[in-house]
């Protein structure tokens, strides 16, 4: 009996044990409550969403044009600078707090009132002489999207620096690509590095020429002290380079960099301009404001497109978009760029007109365009028939990055396309191009861009607001002087850009002064002394940042 009981008990407990294991495994999901979901998803991911107040907007303006070696010469008759350079600064704020204009080392020069909002703008103008590089600092408005632009123009009517040097002030950055300049005999290319910050910046410079990257013995690494400007002559570091592209990389502080490029033929000035940073290497680039005087295909004074594929060899397509649509550049539309070799593409043989150039490559490239205008030798104001004695002025056009085709299609809703402050004393033409999304050689342009061009006078009042429609693939030129006759226009802004059909807008301002130059197409800015101003994009700062605590940070 006991044995029976024992067997029964053992059998029972065995069954129970197995049932516990098997049943537990089978029934657990039904019995156990589900793991609770997090009430705060952010906390579950160790994330805090933080509103960041917008910071200050800082624009660093180039110094007025200056001589490479002001002490040379000696003969008063052949002075390098027989006439003084007049320089102007203009600043325009459509949306920002009250800003101040200071020199690099902090001396206050002027004040930019806070933007009044609405259709108005606040304008600051400073006249000659400007004390050198200037910094405009303005707090961003509450929504973080500030619209401030400034530009500096310096005009020299004769002498080595004869020409108009105008450039928009730039936001200091850590990388700048300068596509322009040369260091052949007669040319001078100064690299100007400005550090508006509070910390010294270490700058490394690389340069490329036609034969690849140029080893820069002494100037490869520079220290730009806080609030200081450093000027280096590239002809000293890399002499005899006729096609130059420079990259500037800063660490320890943000710097603004540009090249002041001046060329002489003997004693005849051949043009001076600032090469301001264009887009970093990108696959899609555009350059607005290329004015063709209808040069012959072999004309050396025709605009030139400078291209460099810094990293890898690239195949590029160069397209020209004129007033009547696309103009094919026979034989030069498809280019293969060797890595590191700077290539100049002459844009001769174009019909007279104002163009925008687009560069599409399968690898990131940098680009720049230079254009030249002849001047007069004498006071008569007529161009000399013989080019050798004719003074010229030149303008370097910085490249703007274009959104990818797919990105452009996605961009919806009106947006602003930046603004340009216009220094006084120049005649201006606003060049607007709508580049189609598909820029392949045989594509048919479709769509277009609607935009509103607004002009402001020196008091900040809006003098004109013109809705404009640009068909895809065309360039339209607005003569500021004609649009607002008799007004001293201090700034232009392009607003409410509404692209359609994948088109994207690219624009710039051609500024000129002096007597009308020969061969310049009608439509504004006909002067002999010329520069091209790139728009200053709106910058959005502040906003929401997700801060995520991750203890494993830094560990592999």
């Amino acid at each position: 009996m006991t044995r029976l009981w024992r067997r029964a008990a053992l059998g029972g407990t065995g069954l129970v044990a197995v049932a516990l294991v098997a049943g537990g495994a089978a029934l657990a999901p039904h019995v156990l409550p589900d793991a609770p979901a997090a009430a705060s998803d952010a906390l579950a991911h160790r994330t805090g969403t933080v509103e960041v107040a917008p910071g200050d907007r800082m624009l660093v303006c180039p110094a007025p044009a200056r001589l490479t070696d002001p002490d040379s010469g000696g003969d008063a008759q052949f002075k390098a600078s027989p006439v003084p350079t007049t320089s102007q600064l203009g600043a325009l704020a459509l949306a920002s707090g009250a800003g101040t204009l200071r020199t690099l080392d902090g001396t206050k020069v002027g004040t930019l009132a806070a933007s009044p909002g609405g259709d108005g703008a606040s304008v600051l103008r400073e006249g000659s002489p400007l004390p050198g590089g200037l910094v405009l600092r303005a707090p961003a408005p509450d929504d973080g999207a500030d619209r401030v632009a400034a530009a500096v123009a310096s005009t020299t009517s004769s002498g080595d620096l004869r020409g108009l040097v105008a450039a928009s002030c730039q936001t200091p950055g850590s990388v700048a690509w300068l596509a322009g300049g040369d260091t052949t005999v007669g040319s001078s290319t100064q690299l100007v590095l400005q550090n508006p910050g509070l910390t010294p910046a270490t700058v490394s410079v690389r340069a490329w020429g036609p034969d690849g990257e140029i080893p820069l013995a002494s100037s490869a690494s520079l220290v730009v002290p806080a609030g200081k400007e450093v000027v280096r002559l590239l002809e000293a570091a890399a002499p005899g380079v006729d096609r130059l592209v420079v990259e500037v990389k800063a660490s320890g502080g943000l710097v603004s960099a540009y090249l002041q490029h001046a060329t002489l033929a003997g004693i005849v000035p051949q043009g001076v301009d600032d090469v301001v940073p264009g887009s970093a290497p990108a696959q899609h680039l555009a350059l607005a404001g290329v004015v063709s005087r209808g040069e012959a295909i072999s004309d050396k004074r025709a605009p030139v497109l400078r291209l460099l594929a810094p990293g890898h060899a690239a195949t590029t397509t160069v397209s020209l978009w004129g007033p009547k649509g696309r103009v094919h550049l026979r034989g030069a539309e498809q280019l293969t760029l060797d890595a590191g070799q700077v290539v100049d593409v002459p844009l001769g043989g174009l019909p007279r007109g104002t163009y925008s150039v687009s560069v599409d490559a399968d690898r990131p490239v940098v680009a720049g365009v230079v254009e030249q205008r002849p001047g007069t030798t004498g006071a008569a104001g007529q161009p000399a028939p013989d080019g050798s004695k004719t003074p010229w002025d030149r303008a370097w056009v910085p490249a703007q990055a274009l959104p990818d085709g797919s990105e452009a299609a996605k961009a919806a809703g009106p947006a602003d396309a930046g603004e340009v402050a216009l220094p006084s004393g120049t005649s201006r033409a606003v060049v607007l191009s709508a580049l189609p999304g598909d820029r392949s050689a045989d594509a048919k342009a479709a769509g277009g861009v609607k935009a509103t061009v607004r002009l402001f006078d020196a008091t900040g009042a809006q003098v004109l607001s013109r809705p404009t429609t640009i068909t895809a693939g065309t360039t339209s030129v607005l003569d500021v002087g004609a649009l607002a006759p008799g007004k001293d226009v201090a700034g232009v802004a392009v607003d409410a850009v509404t692209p359609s059909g994948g088109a994207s807008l690219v624009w710039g301002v051609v500024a000129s002064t002096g007597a009308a130059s020969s061969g310049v197409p009608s439509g504004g800015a006909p002067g002999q002394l010329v520069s091209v101003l790139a728009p200053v994009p709106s910058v959005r700062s502040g906003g929401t940042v997700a801060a995520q605590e991750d203890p494993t940070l830094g560990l592999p």
Partner: protein
Amino acid sequence: MNDASALSTTPADAGASVVSAVTGTVPVVASVTAVIVTRGANPWFRRTLAAVRAQHRAPTRLVVVDVATATATSGYADLQLGDARFVAASRARTFGEGVAAALREEPDGQWLWLLHDDSAPDPGALGALLRAVEHSSAVAVAGAKQRRWPTAPASSVTRLDDARRIPELLEVGVTTSRGGRRVSVVEPHEIDQGQHDARDDVLGVGLAGALVRRNVWDELGGTDPELGPFGDGLDLCRRARLAGHRVVVVPGAVVEHAQLSLHRVDPTDGAHPGDPDPDDGGDASFGARRRSELYLRLVGAPLALLPLLVVWLVLCAPFRAMYRLVLKQPGHARDELLAPLLVLVRVPGLVRARRSVRRTSTVPRRAVRPLQQDWREGAAQRRDRRLSAAEQRRSAFAPSELERAELAQLATRRRVALGAVALALVVLTGLVFASLTGALASGERLVGGALLPASSTWGELWSATTTGWVESGFGHPAPADPVLAVVLGASVLTAGHVQVAVNLLLVASFLASGLGAWFAAGALTRWNPARAWAALVWAASPALLLAVGQGRLGALVAHAALPWFVLATLRGVGVVVDDRISPASGPLDAAGRGPARRLGTPSLGALAGAALLLVPVAAGAPALLAVAVVGVVVAALATAVTSARPRRYVRLLLVPVPALVVLGPFLWHVGRTWGRQGGGWRLLLASPGNPTGYDAVAPWQSALGWPARPGTALGTSGAWVTVVSWALVGSVALVAVVALVRSRRPVATRVAWLVAAAGVALAAAAPHVTVATSVSGLVRAWPGPGTSVVVAGLLAAALLGLPERTVLRGRYEERHRGRQAARAAVVVVALAVPCAAVGTWVVHQVDPTRHTVGDLTLTGTPVVPPVGQQMQASGARLLLLDAVPTTGAVPTVRYTLLRADGTQLVDSSVVVDGRAARAALEGASPEPTSPEAQLAQVVAQLAGDGVAPSSRGIADTMSDLGVGGVLLPADGTTRGSARTALTARLDTVPGLARVTEGQSSVLWRVALPGAGAAQTSTSGAWATLRDGDGKVLRSLASHDAEVDLDLPARTSATTLVLASHAHRHWSATLDGRPLARADGGGTTWQQEFTVPAGRGGHLVVTYDAPHRALWLWSSGVLLLVVILLALPVRRRRVVLR
């Protein structure tokens, strides 16, 4: 008259016996009063009385003193006292008082013959004694030779006439060492062959059977009333000696002494308790004897040495107790500790005794020195005893030639199998870790998954483990993770190198697990292939593989320690099987099994070992402690009811105690927060280290040993993986099911199944419990420990069900080639499955070229560059930033606050993680004023888009948060232009100064105006001294959330600010005087103290958790006790017959 007594009686005594045979009892010339002190009427007393009556020379008077307090007179119903006087002395507490009570009514008489109720004299004893004293008036005490009372049937009151009985000596006089320790010339169990019969003058004799001169007795005042049954004779004799008398032992007088007091047998028990076990060596009375000995030493010591002796005795007691613990005598250890204290409180008795000695002494103390044993003799005696004990152990088991050969063969087979298993495990360890060995030994870090670096020093680890303050973020009052205790212990082995210790834990895990399983399996089966199978399955357990691959240190430690714990527990309760060499003594049953096997004896040492091994198991996975506690309670209760020997199981209740104490603060926290929202019980399931998620599996997969998805765990998928992964534990489960039906030990099999069921419950519950948060979301508890228990339970059941090798193959068994081949094939397949599983894991998870094991990666490069570490060493924390490229609209930046080279193991806390998880579950965001929110704000401002903030406020905030620098790590996810932009942005933040140039990681220090200009000095530090406006005057060097430095006095009052959450257990002292807390108006989160103007000195800031000292001391003492108890000093018997 028998042969045995003839052996010991002298010829003269033989003559007397002849006379007495003719004339009857011869009266004594000298008057002798015999006093028998008894406690109630007991069998021994009856025999003693009979023996006194049978004396050849009868005592003049016989007095029987009964000291029993409440004995009914019915107890004496059949007692014939004759002419003996009966004295009831119920108030007498000692033998001496009983004698005194007898003598009160006996004014005259020359000699006293003192007898215990358990000391039966030989018939010629009194005669021999009288002959010894009749010619010398100097002899005051004449003692008898004491022999062991013979083993006799309980009812026997007459002397056993058994010629084969071997007379065992108990005492032929005693003496003391020079130090006062009682020594006897007689060895335990020494056979009386007359070898000590030449002894004469001795220092002392036992009073049982001793003849004492009456006037000396009266002069000395009898025995010392403070002494109980032990040492009273020695004391009396010593005093007699000092009073100028002689004390002799008379070998001719033989007394058989049962030593009831020594064995603590109460003779008044109604039932006769049987013969006391002569082998226990008087264990029961050890404390009383020790107290008597100490008392005698204090009485006998010179006055000048007395204080020294007292201190010595008290100081020695713990060490003597430790020695007793090593000998597995915990009761004696207690007695050793208590004895000095109990003796020292008896001051009046001591004074009286010393005074009495002084009063009666006539000779100086040095007169007794020749009678004492000198140290040389003592040493010789100890050596002899040691040798004889060793010899006795050797001869206890003397196998025959045949048995010897079988034993050798068994041992060879066992060792070969063990060697093969160990080799396999070493090969596995080599495959996994060989490419890392050199780097790991040099302290390089293996990090990844849940494993965090451990660059701390031993001191930092110690303070992190014990202070109760977790230093992650801005500090939290929380108990340290229990696993740190294991790391602490392991780093003792590595001479304080914590990282090496962590590496060692990882590398040794396969070997420790596999060997543990081998030995644990040996407690269940002696079939070597089965043991090898168990070892391989355990080492290939998914719980272990995943714990290694994901760096789950806790689960790994628990898995490796579990089999050792099981083994120790089974040994402790004595349910292990051992090798058996003789052929089965009974017929085999139908299943071919021999008769049930005798199990081993319970072992206190093994139980202590189990208690010790439960500490790492519980520290690795606290849930297993809960399982263990429930298990031992159930086992104790169940066996207390059912078992014949419940004591061995009841002792099990003590096994969890050390783990409970060592994990005390953690468990206390768990208990305190048990019922709250979120529940502290979750912490029991949480695994330590960096919270790491996993792919949860269905419970049935957990029941087959997989805590996570096999595909992702093994790093591959396919039919092969499916087969191997399920066959690994599935085959074990199948055998375990069979074991329920046919098993050698059916109850044990069911217990194993219940253990597996507990494991299933644990493993199934774990994925439903949220324990932490991580950047990839909520983290559920890791089911690894649960699956470890499942595999352990199933393995145990399977091993119990496998056929046991009852006889040696090839010797007694005829060969069945077919059956042998089939069996070998099964064994090979069984061993191949775990090898295949672990091989698949190795192939897909171990990459020797990239130095990775699963998620673990070897790294030698520091996260924080040396200059940053220098800043950290001076008390600054570094903010590590890394912008994450996201596709979403909101830019994401990751950050962490570092106080060392990377987030440290000691900084992770399951309690802190649990709080974060609870906040996430409840959706409770931190207050905007909390430092955590402020830090997030700072991070967002530093790393946000657009233009950098221009105010210095951000640096001020960082300084308030104790952030001394910002670090952009070398190999973060921020690369290319984003990294450049972030660098540029940080460069332009006012108050941040770049420290490193041209390195892959970029470091900025917080430099507020006025702070030092040195590269590593920073305005942000954990501890700062600030003026009334909150401006940092000075940052103070701190270490492990402690400040210890000299502070110069300042002219104005300053505030000491700790960048740490305020807590009432923070304390600051300046030159030992506490500093007042500054409440900061209730708006600050920091801990602040006010330093008064003009005061300087040594500043110490610490966090003092409540009861820390109590916990540390109790843990330390308990661990010491357990370790001493667990030390294997006594050779265990390997083989049972």
